[in-house]
């Protein structure tokens, strides 16, 4: 299939927002999405962005049933391993269902890893839900490593009241 991978721009936030919601529906948690297109614009395209994005785009004649030409995206940011140094974290990787199986997801992920290597990163990290067998298989087939299964690292989170209490030193 004919597609291009390019850096996301401010104008892409509308489509990124749309696809974030589609991804959340796929992960069965669409009620959890709280950020808006405006948040994305502010947090991703300011002088000190919290994330970077890349978009997969198809030509007009291959657009989706609803008329979209932006058919996939990946959001990533730079992180740090205090053992290995610079790393890149892929927060989202999404391709619209009707465009899957055509190498777009792989191309997006490859681009993130290429950019990461160019920035001096030695790791590309991300998370997957354990029931998401098709994604897990896709990633493991590319040669990645399940750090949770192999080493026992668990993802932990503080938010809401727990974060508030923690910040106040009220433990």
């Amino acid at each position, binding site marked *: 299939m004919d597609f291009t991978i390019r850096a996301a721009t401010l104008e892409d936030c509308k489509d990124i927002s749309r696809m974030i919601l589609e991804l959340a529906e796929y992960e069965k948690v669409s009620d959890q999405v709280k950020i808006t297109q405006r948040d994305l614009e502010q947090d991703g395209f300011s002088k000190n962005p919290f994330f970077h994005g890349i978009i997969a785009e198809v030509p007009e004649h291959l657009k989706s049933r609803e008329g979209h030409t932006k058919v996939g995206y990946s959001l990533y940011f730079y992180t740090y391993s205090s053992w*290995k140094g610079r790393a890149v974290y892929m927060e989202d990787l999404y391709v619209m269902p009707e465009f899957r199986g055509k190498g777009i997801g792989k191309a997006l992920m490859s681009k993130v890893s290429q950019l990461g290597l160019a920035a001096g990163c030695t790791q*590309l990290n991300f998370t997957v839900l354990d029931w998401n067998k098709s994604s897990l298989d896709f990633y493991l087939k590319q040669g990645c490593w399940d750090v949770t299964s192999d080493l026992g690292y668990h993802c932990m*989170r503080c938010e809401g009241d727990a*974060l508030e209490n923690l*910040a106040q030193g009220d433990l």
Partner: protein
Amino acid sequence: MGRGEKGEKGAQGVMWPLMGPGVRTKPLRPPPLPLKKKFLIKSTRFTWVTCFGFKTANFAERKRDMNILDEKGELAVYEKMPDQVKISHKELERDGFGRNPFYQCLVAEVSEDHKSKDGHTKVGYSLFFYTYSTWKGRTVYMEDLYVMPEYRGKGIGKALMATVAKVAKEQHCVRLQFSVLDWNKPSLDFYLAKGAEDLTAKEGWHFLRFHGIALDNLAREAP
């Protein structure tokens, strides 16, 4: 894209950003600490240093605070992976104290008369950076939290974590995330008692990673 930051011109003249976000924060005042009457350490003085605080510090001070690298060695030993620490003082310095830092670091310091058996006054640290949730927005990831064994149980770990949370709130972050090894029961209990959720146990999230040859091979296929 690419506004304000160094980037690399790729095909189509698009700027691909190369460097990390490096959100600026002001150096914080330390939180008030209770006096520990039961212990030999009567009061503990903390100094909180952010990356950008080092802008005005002299080079010698930067070098001195790089003993967090030695503390990382201790943390790696605790997590049973001492052979995994590959980065040097030089990389830590470049990546944390340059114009576009990849991380921020807090150091817990005691006064000279309470220094450790080996003569250290820097007895704990936390290393963190800003991340993003496409569902909830700005978040902070706490990469490391460590207190030397002889200084544990005195509120230093809690104070470090509380300050990271405070910084997170000041930057309008809605989450603080980190990881813990599943066999590390004292740490797991500590965090769960503070209201943290174990997302791996609760929702099935797994960390996956590309590195080494697998990462090179993946990058080679980029369009």
